[in-house]
């Protein structure tokens, strides 16, 4: 129904009339956003580069997305492209809207996705405020995703990035039609290899820079310790590890150390069959474990659903991704009142993790998505 629309990269944005328009391009210091900005400059846009200072004090803070080195790289790329460069101080917003939420979600037995929160509340919200201040027509990022225009329905469509390995459309399901209309993903139609190749051709200094990994504000990857540093002793919810019948198998030092589907770190050796976390009960502090068969569920309840491609009120078939790195699974989606939706998986029963997003796909196209409230 839509397959022909996404062949040309956001054609409406790259038409000649769009040129000379002002774009606010987010530069992270990495290669993807650098090439994104470079492509916009090549296409004739007036590009203003922005980096966002999110975490740390950027004074001696090492690693992660907000190290001095990354800002230095971003600044030098902007110099190479001969475009103005600014650093936005979003530390306060990042603390209240991402880090605090991140910590709080773990305390409620959920597994948050800070990149999703950051995209929704910072990249595409506060960045947009700056864009309006500076009379910029578009905001651009280095995400691997595409926006196309559906003439028939006069609507904008969020599509997977061409590089299936890198596709980041999962992180973008919260975008509204108004935001999609003014968002550019210049590397969305390229593969990572092509992006690096382009960076080399342009002589961009970040061409060979390695990928950033893990959660940007927890550079060492030890998020449990990060959370513990931010909590008082009473807030840490220690408790029991129980089996499906409620039999106590062991104890643990805090529910924030667990996520659904987790196998390691349970301290349950010597069992014939491996055990996985199937459920985390924040109230009682209990972590329930089970076998692989007991891990899966038939469906989930999603809240704060955003219908990216246009609001759905009827049952819809779609492929649903319940974690960024999971494959999309065929499912039926039944919209509910108050912006919720029930998702029933058709062939599989995956491990559903409250706090993550469920994103609905029709082939390449994102139909919408919501935050997983609980497994059904």
């Amino acid at each position, binding site marked *: 129904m839509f397959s022909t629309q996404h062949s040309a990269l956001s054609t409406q944005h790259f038409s000649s009339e769009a040129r000379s328009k002002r774009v606010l391009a987010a530069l992270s210091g990495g290669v993807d956003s650098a090439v994104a900005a470079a492509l916009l400059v090549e296409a004739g846009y007036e590009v*203003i580069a922005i*980096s966002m*200072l999110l975490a740390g*004090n*950027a*004074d001696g803070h090492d690693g992660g997305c*907000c190290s*001095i080195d990354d*800002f230095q790289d971003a*600044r030098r790329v902007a110099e190479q492209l001969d475009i*103005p460069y*600014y*650093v*936005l*101080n979003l*530390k306060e917003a990042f603390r209240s809207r991402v880090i605090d939420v991140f910590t709080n979600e773990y305390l409620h037995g959920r597994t948050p996705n800070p990149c999703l929160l950051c995209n929704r509340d910072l990249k595409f*919200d506060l960045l947009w*405020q*700056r864009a*309006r*201040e*500076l*009379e910029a027509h578009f905001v651009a990022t280095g995400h691997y995703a595409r926006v196309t225009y559906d003439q028939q329905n006069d609507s904008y469509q969020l599509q997977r990035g061409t590089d299936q390995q890198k596709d980041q459309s999962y992180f973008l399901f919260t975008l509204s039609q108004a935001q999609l209309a003014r968002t550019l993903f210049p590397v969305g139609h390229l593969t990572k290899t092509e992006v690096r190749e382009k960076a080399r051709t342009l002589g961009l200094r970040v061409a060979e820079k390695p990928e950033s990994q893990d959660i940007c504000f927890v550079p060492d990857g030890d998020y449990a310790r990060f959370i513990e540093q931010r909590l008082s002793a009473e807030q840490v919810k220690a408790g029991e590890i129980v089996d499906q019948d409620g039999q106590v198998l062991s104890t643990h030092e805090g529910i924030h150390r667990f996520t659904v589907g987790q196998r390691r770190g349970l301290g349950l050796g010597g069992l014939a069959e491996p055990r996985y976390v199937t459920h985390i009960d924040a109230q009682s502090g209990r972590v329930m474990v089970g076998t692989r068969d007991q891990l899966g569920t038939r469906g989930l309840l999603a809240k704060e659903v955003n219908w990216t491609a246009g609001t759905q009120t009827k049952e819809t078939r779609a492929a649903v991704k319940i974690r960024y790195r999971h494959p999309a699974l065929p499912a039926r989606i039944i919209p509910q009142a108050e912006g919720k939706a029930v998702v029933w998986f058709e062939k599989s029963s995956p491990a559903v993790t409250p706090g993550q997003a469920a994103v609905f796909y029709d082939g390449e196209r994102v139909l919408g998505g919501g935050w997983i409230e609980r497994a059904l």
Partner: protein
Amino acid sequence: MQTIYLDHNATTPLRPEVLVAMLPYLNVHFGNPSSVHRAGRRAKQGLEEAREQVAAFMKARPAEVLFTSGGTESNNLALRGMRRATYDTGKHIITTAIEHSSILEPLRRLAGEGITVTTLPVDREGRVSAEDLAAALRPETTLVSIGLANHEVGTIQPITALSRMIHEHDVLLHVDAVQAAGKLPLEVHSLGVDLLSLSAHKLYGPKGIGALYVRKGTNLLPLMSGGAQEREKRPGTENVAAAVGFGVAATLAAQEIEWQAAHSLRLTTRLWEGIQDKVSHVSLNGPERDRLANTLNVSFAGAAGEGLMMGLDLAGIAVSTGSACAAGSIEPSHVLLALGRDEAMAKSAIRFSVGRDTTEQEIDRVLEVLPSVVERVRAAARSQS
């Protein structure tokens, strides 16, 4: 695009006369001033002439002038050098809440090393009161450090009045005059200071050179070791060309200090009247009088300073807001918070600082551009909330 530069409190352009004076010391007279031979003597001559010029600039003796790498080093040397010299007795230092970070940060470190630091509050215009100072002075106080003029809002402190009280208590006075130099007449004796910091690039000299005045007889220990330069107070081969530039810049600044003050006042008055005329809900940060004539700090209620600064920059107008961190992002000004502004007002402030090269046409151009930039930033904030 022609840039209109209204950020002279951050730095100033090098005067052509200064560059001309410096050049021979970068190529022809390249000698090391510590060398005994002719080349060394020639370089030393330039260095010592520069010292005389900088000394004359503040009516001090040449022997009382130490060259440093700039204002930050001068401030650190004053605070830490005094600490080292008075290690047994120096237990208490007094400063104010609106000092530059090169005062407040070293003092924070010293506080961690066992020194007690009293930070005096300021009033809504940024002035420190004699009563507060009197109440803070104790028998174990060794040093008071106060900025002569504030870098962000331009408030001028009544140093002469304060220094009398300080000396009656047998306490030493350090004055950070980095921002005041070239804008106010500077006489170390009438000010009654024991230590005074200067920086060349704030008065149309080169970056990377500053000075610390150390009144004769004041005991100060160096922070580094490794050479006999600068009376062993600041070892390391001297930055001769920069010192020569500093000397010339200081001499020229002293000659035109009245003209510059009048010129600056005319421009900032024009700018402030124009802003009040064309933009609603604006307020002045800092005093109406007794302020550096070149400095105008204004809060634009409901508009983020960061957005204003970027919008003006894209229109070719250079101003500043807050102070930049290592990454280059803007932190809310501790000075404005100390003046009793709330965080929102502090974040909506823009500092305009004019210079000897600023023209009325430039001010008028700013007044053409500014209202629409403010309106846009305010509108964006409204649509956000």
